[in-house]
Each structure stands twice: as structure tokens, then as C-alpha cells.
């Protein structure tokens, strides 16, 4: 089966590309990035601020299962409806440097659209670190599950 979401990350480069084809008209796909209430729904985050214009900025906040709050923010450099968003992205209180994101929206047919998201990092190492994050989290989760099973076993 053809995968809907693809990651392209060449070695020793400080960029990666995420490509996704949606079973949605272009205008609806773009709206998912434009309206704060909708962003909150699919990203699972609180939208504290979202100024969709050049020189605008945004601020998101998520709460993890432990109740800790995590802040994200960035500056919007380009906002062209149904075409392009260029922005920075920063994870607050983490060692990750700010990254630059180019989002290109494209119509494939009346009911299908594509998003190409190119992310540029400070260094190739920073990119690899971010790529590994879900991998590491997966290992941690497996480890925690194992620990939980083991401790329940002892009780």
C-alpha cells in the first residue's frame, strides 16, 4: 500500500521533508492550519495566539499526561491562503534550537490536496536528534510498560 505520509531525510543534511496527500479539498486542508479552534482539535494543543500574517506570531501550549505544560511558539514570515506558510518553530525550555518551516499547499484534484513541509534545522545533528525523538520515546514507553509489568508481577 502506498504510504500517505512520507519522510525524506538525506544523511548529513540539516533539513527534512514531510509529504502528505490528503483526501480533502485544498481549502479545507488550509483551513486546518488557519482556524485556531480547528488547530486545537487536530494538534491536541491549546492555541494561545495565532496571527496569520507576515510579522505575526503564534503560541501553542500542550499539557502532557503528567500535567506538565509545554510551550511552542514561532514567527510567521509568509501567510498566503491556500498556498504557503513560512514560519519558525521553537520548543520552549528544550535544548532544541529554533527551526525554520516551509509549508507548501497544493491542489491535486477537486477533492485531494498535498502538503509538503520542509524543515530546516541549525545543524544536521539537531535534525537527527529530532528524528530520533519519537524513536527514543517509543523505546522509553516499551521500557516503562515492561517495568510496569515487572513490578505488577512482584506484587
Amino acid at each position: 500500500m502506498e504510504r500517505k505520509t512520507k519522510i525524506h531525510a538525506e544523511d548529513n543534511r540539516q533539513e527534512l521533508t514531510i509529504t502528505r496527500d490528503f483526501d480533502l479539498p485544498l481549502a479545507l486542508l488550509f483551513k486546518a492550519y488557519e482556524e485556531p479552534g480547528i488547530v486545537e482539535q487536530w494538534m491536541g494543543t491549546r492555541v494561545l495566539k495565532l496571527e496569520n500574517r507576515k510579522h505575526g506570531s503564534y503560541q501553542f501550549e500542550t499539557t502532557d499526561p503528567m500535567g506538565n505544560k509545554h510551550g511552542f511558539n514561532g514567527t510567521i514570515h509568509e501567510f498566503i491562503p491556500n498556498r504557503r506558510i513560512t514560519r519558525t518553530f521553537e520548543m520552549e525550555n528544550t535544548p532544541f534550537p529554533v527551526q525554520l518551516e516551509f509549508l507548501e499547499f497544493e491542489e491535486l484534484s477537486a477533492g485531494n490536496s498535498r502538503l509538503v513541509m520542509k524543515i530546516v534545522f541549525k545543524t544536521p545533528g539537531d535534525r537527527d536528534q529530532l528524528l530520533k525523538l519519537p524513536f527514543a520515546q517509543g523505546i522509553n514507553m516499551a521500557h516503562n510498560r515492561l517495568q510496569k509489568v515487572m513490578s505488577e508481577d512482584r506484587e
Partner: protein
Amino acid sequence: MNLRRDVFQAIADPTRRAILLLVASQSMTAGAIAANFDTARPTVSKHVQILTECQLLEQEQNGREIYYHLNANKLKEIADFIEPFRKMWDDRFNTLEAVMKNYQAGK
């Protein structure tokens, strides 16, 4: 050469990916691999060497010939490394798609 050889560096190159595809179906000698490319034979040999150094290819001696075959376990290591990141975005975009389909239906 004192370059660090890792699997990610190895698969970054299109010729090396083509070599991996080629030997995926059957073991081949370096000469047989090179015969599939327009590139000069020493260049292909260099690619084979890099793939061998990072363990994506394994050598096996058969009489006077050395055959190369794919080390599937090593390949799986790479696939698994990016897969959780891809899956995370895939899940996120699936949610986006579902939310927008609801939105469309509700209008």
C-alpha cells in the same frame, strides 16, 4: 579513508540504494553488480565497499568468487529508526483529515 561509515550515510546515495535493490533478490559478484550500471566499475566497487563496511552488504566466498548479499537485519534497523517519526506525523495528519471531514459534513 578515515570516514565514519554509518548506514544512514550509505543509503543517502541513489546508486547505493540501487545496488541494495539489485542484490535484494539474489547474491551477486561485484562484477555482476557493476554490469548493471553505466558508472565506471571502480566507482561501483567503491559503493559496494561502503555498503559492506556499514554491514548493509555481506560477503560470502564461493570458490574464487566473492558474492554479495543484502543484510536484511541491518536494513530493518534503519527503517525502524525513522518509522516512529513518520508514524507520529501520519497519526497527526490522519486526525487532521478526520477533523476536517467532520467539519465538512457539519456544514
